[in-house]
C-alpha cells in the first residue's frame, strides 16, 4: 500500500522489540468474538490511483458542473470566480496538513492568518470582533441565537420570515432541545421586506430577532429600523448575511446596529462544493461581548523575547477547558476555508471588493430587466443586490426541472426552499454574479420564455 511505509522486515523487527510474536498479539484486549474474521463485506482490496480516480471521474460526470451550463443558483451559496493563487496557497502542505494551532511557537502561520481573517471579517461586518470561523452560516446562526440567550437570559427568538429556511430549520431543530421558543413566519411575497410585521413580533421576552440581509428573496431590509425596535425591547439584533460580496456595495450590518452578525463566507474563496465545506462567519459589534462568543479566537500577544506573536485565546469559554460549562460544544473551525477567504479577500482588497460588488449588481440589474420583459414574468423586488425573485405565474419547480433537462440551471424555486407552501410556488430566485455572461442571460431568457409559452 502506497500510504503505508512499514516493510515486512520493519514489522518483524518491531514485533521483536515489543516482545510479541504477531500483530494479533497486540489486539489481545479485543474479545475474540468482536474481531472480524475476514475483510469487510463487499469492500474490494486496495486500488491504485488510476482506478480510484477513474471511479470518481465516472461519478463526477453524472453531475452537471456549474461551469458547464448557464447558471443562476444562489439562495445561500454563490458562484464567484476564485483566483488561481487562492488554491495554490491552500495546497501548501504547511497550511493543508497543519494541526489546530495549540502550539503557537510552531503555528504562527495559521495564527497570523486567523488574526488577519478575524480583522477582515470584523471590518466587513462593521463589528469589533470576529471569531476564527464556524462550520457554516446556518450553524453560526444557531450559535448566535444561543449566544443571544446567554447575553439576555431570555428564551424567545423571533425569526424573520425571510430568513433562509434551512437556517430557520436548524434553529428550530436545536431549540427543540434547549427549550427556546421560536417565533417564525413565512416570507411575505412583496417588493419590500415587511419590517413592520417583524417589529410587531418583538416583545419584552425576546432575546433576539434574526434578520437576513439581503434576505432570502434578495431584498435588502432596512436593518437600522429593526435594530432600533429590538434594542428598545432589550433584545439583540442578529443579522445574517449569506452573500459577503454584497457588503462591498451595501452598508455593513454592524454599522446599522446589529449586535451579532453571522453569515456564510463561502462566496469568497471557497467555491460551491455541493454545499460544504463552507465557512461560518461570526462577529459581535461590541467587543465586550467577546467572552460570550462561541468558537476559537486568535489574539495578539508577545513571546518571551518581546516579539509580536499570536495565540488562540479566551479558551476558558471552550469545551476542552470548560467541558459541560462551555459556551458551545464546537471544537473545530473551518480553518482552511478561512484561509481561502482571507487570501481571496486580500487579493481583492477594498477596491477589488467594491468593483466586484458593482459588477455583480450591474449585471443583476441587466438580467432582472431582461427577464421581466418575458410575458408572464414579474420582478418581485424593489431592492436587490445580485439576486432577485421572479414570479412566473406557474409552479417554478417544474420550470426549473424542465430547464435543467435542457442544460440551463435557471435558479432556485421557492418551492424547493419552502416545500408545500402554495403561495410561494410560483417564485423563482435568480442569482447573477461576475461569472454570468450576457449570453447566459439571453439563454435563460429564451428558455424561460419558451417554457412559459
Amino acid at each position, binding site marked *: 500500500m502506497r500510504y*503505508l511505509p512499514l516493510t515486512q522486515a520493519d514489522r518483524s523487527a518491531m514485533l521483536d522489540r515489543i516482545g510479541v510474536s504477531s500483530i494479533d498479539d497486540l489486539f489481545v484486549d479485543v474479545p475474540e468474538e468482536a474481531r472480524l474474521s475476514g475483510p469487510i463485506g463487499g469492500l474490494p482490496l486496495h486500488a491504485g490511483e488510476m482506478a480510484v480516480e477513474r471511479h470518481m471521474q465516472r461519478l463526477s460526470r453524472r453531475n452537471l458542473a456549474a461551469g458547464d451550463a448557464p447558471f443562476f443558483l444562489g439562495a445561500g451559496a454563490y458562484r464567484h470566480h476564485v483566483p488561481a493563487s487562492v488554491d495554490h496557497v491552500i495546497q501548501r502542505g504547511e497550511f493543508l496538513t497543519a494541526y489546530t494551532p495549540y502550539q503557537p511557537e510552531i503555528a504562527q502561520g495559521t495564527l497570523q492568518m486567523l488574526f488577519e481573517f478575524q480583522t477582515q471579517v470584523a471590518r466587513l461586518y462593521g463589528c469589533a470582533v470576529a471569531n476564527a470561523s464556524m462550520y457554516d452560516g446556518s450553524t453560526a446562526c444557531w450559535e448566535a441565537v444561543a449566544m443571544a440567550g446567554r447575553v439576555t437570559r431570555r428564551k424567545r427568538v423571533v425569526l424573520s420570515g425571510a430568513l433562509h429556511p434551512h437556517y430557520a430549520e436548524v434553529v428550530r431543530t436545536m431549540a427543540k432541545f434547549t427549550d427556546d421558543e421560536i417565533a417564525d413566519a413565512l416570507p411575505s411575497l412583496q417588493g419590500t421586506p415587511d419590517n413592520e410585521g417583524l417589529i410587531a413580533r418583538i416583545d419584552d421576552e425576546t432575546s433576539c430577532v434574526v434578520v437576513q440581509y439581503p434576505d432570502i428573496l434578495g431584498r435588502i431590509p432596512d436593518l437600522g429600523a429593526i435594530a432600533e425596535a429590538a434594542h428598545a425591547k432589550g433584545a439583540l439584533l442578529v443579522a445574517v448575511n449569506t452573500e459577503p460580496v454584497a*457588503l462591498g456595495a451595501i452598508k455593513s450590518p454592524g454599522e446599522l446596529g446589529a449586535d451579532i452578525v453571522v453569515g456564510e463566507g463561502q462566496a469568497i474563496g471557497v467555491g460551491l462544493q455541493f454545499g460544504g465545506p463552507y465557512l461560518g462567519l461570526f462577529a459581535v459589534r461590541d467587543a465586550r461581548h467577546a467572552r460570550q462568543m462561541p468558537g476559537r479566537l486568535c489574539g495578539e500577544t508577545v513571546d518571551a523575547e518581546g516579539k509580536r506573536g499570536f495565540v488562540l485565546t479566551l479558551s476558558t469559554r471552550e469545551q476542552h477547558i470548560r467541558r459541560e460549562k462551555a459556551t458551545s460544544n464546537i471544537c473545530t473551525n473551518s480553518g482552511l476555508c478561512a484561509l481561502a477567504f482571507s487570501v481571496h479577500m486580500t487579493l481583492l482588497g477594498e477596491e477589488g471588493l467594491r468593483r466586484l460588488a458593482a459588477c455583480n449588481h450591474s449585471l443583476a440589474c441587466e438580467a432582472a430587466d431582461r427577464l421581466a420583459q418575458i410575458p408572464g414574468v414579474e420582478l418581485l423586488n424593489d431592492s436587490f443586490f445580485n439576486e432577485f425573485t421572479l414570479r412566473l405565474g406557474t409552479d417554478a419547480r417544474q420550470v426549473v426541472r424542465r430547464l435543467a433537462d435542457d442544460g440551463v440551471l435557471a435558479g432556485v424555486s421557492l418551492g424547493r426552499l419552502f416545500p408545500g407552501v402554495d403561495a410561494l410556488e410560483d417564485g423563482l430566485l435568480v442569482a447573477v454574479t461576475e461569472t454570468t455572461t450576457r449570453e447566459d442571460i439571453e439563454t435563460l431568457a429564451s428558455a424561460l420564455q419558451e417554457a412559459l409559452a
Partner: protein
Amino acid sequence: LEEPLIFEIGHAETTGVDLPEIAPGGPNRLGGMERRDPIGLPGLSEPETVRHYTRLSRQNYAIDLGLFPLGSCTMKHNPRLNEKVARIPGFADVHPLQPVSTVRGALEVINELAHWLIELTGMHGVAMSPKAGAHGELCGILCIRAALEARGDAREVILVPESAHGTNPATAAFAGYRVENIPANADGRVDLEALKARLGPDVAGVMITNPNTCGLFERDMKAISDAVHAAGGFVYCDGANFNAIVGKVRPGDLGVDAMHINLHKTFSTPHGGGGPGSGPVVLSQALSPYGPLPFTARTADGVVHLVEEENAAEFDHTSAFGRMTAFHGQMGMFTRALAYILSHGADGLAQVAEDAVLNANYILRSLDDLLDAPFGDSGPCMHEALFGDRGFAEGLSTLDLAKSLIDEGYHPMTMYFPLVVHGAMLIEPTETESKAGLDQFIEAFRSVAERARAGDGAMKQAPYYAPRRRLDETQAARKPVLAWQGAKGD
C-alpha cells in the same frame, strides 16, 4: 525577516484581481443602503499575496514536515490523490440546490461513502450532514434524545467517563442533559460494576470512547452496552479513536447505538490548521429513524435519492429530529474520504489499524524504561501510548518536555490529557510513519526525557529554535487584542 500583517503592507487601492471599473454612485437598486464609508480592507497584488502566505506558511509545523505525535488526534498523511479528486469540477463546482437530475453523481458519492461507513462499523444507518466531530456527537446525542422522547421517556442524565474528551460533556450539556462521571478501574478502563450500579431510569445513555483515551481497548464494551440497553439507555461511542480498529472490529458488533466518525482522523481528510472537519454519525437500528435530514437513499431501481423535508414521508423517515445544517454536509470531505477508503480497500484498512497499533506499541516499549507508563503493565496499547510525568526532576513539567521537543524538530505530543494521568503524555504515531522515522523520534524523545529526569533547567525556556519563543497566553487572555487596531484608511 518578520512577516508584517496585510494591514501593514496593503493599500485600499491595490488589488490582485482585475475587474472592470464601474463608477460608484450611479443609479442602483440597493434600496438606499449603498455603502459610503471606507471598509478598511487592504489589498495586495498577486506577487505580494503569494509571498505573504508562502512566508507565513513556513512558520507552521505540519505533517508534510514531520511526525505529529498527537494522541487522540490522528494526524496522518493526507494523500494527494484525494486533493485532486475533490477538485474535479463535477464535484467542486456543483451547487447544493441544483435539481437532483443534475447531481446524481454527487448523491452517489454520499451514498457510497455512507454505505462503506455502515459496513465498516456494522451499524444500520448514518447521518452524513454533521459538519465536524463535535457536531456529530451532538447529532448522536440528539438522536438518543429524540428516540427517548418518542417513547415518552424523559431521561436526564448522560454518563461520561472521567477520561472523556471535553466535547463529550459539552455536547451532552448542550443537548440539555446533566453529565455524571463514570469512574475508571485500576487498569484504565471503565469500571463495569460502578457503571451498572449507576444505571437506572434517569440515565439516557453513556458516552464512551473505545479505544479509550488511555489508548486501551474497553474489553467489557459488549457487557457495558448490554447493561445500558437493559436499563433502557443508549450507548454513544466517541469515534475519535476508530483508526485503531478500522477493518478489524465493528463497533456495531459491540452494541454501540451511535458513533461519530471524524473523517479527518481515520479517513485522513486534511486537518487544514483546524478544519473543516466532517462528522458523519453511524446509527443503530433503534436510532436510525431519528437521524436528521437530509440524507441519501438508494431505491431498488438503483437510483440514489436525496431525502429532504418534503419527501421524508416517501422514505418512511418522518421521525427525523430535524436538520443539523443547511445543505448536505461536507461534500468536499466525502470525496476525499471515499477515495481514501477505495484506495486502501478492505486489506489496506485492516493494515492501517494493525500498523497504527504496531507503531504505538513500538513507541511504548521503546520509551517505557525511561518514562512512567501507567498502564504499561496491563498489556499492549492500541494506537497510542500513554505516559505520565513521574520521575521528572523537581520543577520540570510535561509542558517543558513538550516545548523542548519542538527544538528537536517535532510537534509536541498531546499533553495533560487524559486528565486521569498526572502530567499525561499521549503519543499517537499513526500508521503513516516509517520505522526509520519512529526511531529518529524515539531518539529525540529519549533525549528530552533524559533531560527532564536529570533536571535540565534550560527546558523551562524552550523552545529556542522555533519561529517564536514561548508566548504570553495570559496577556492575550487578560487584555484580548482580537483584531488589528490600526486605521481603516491607508
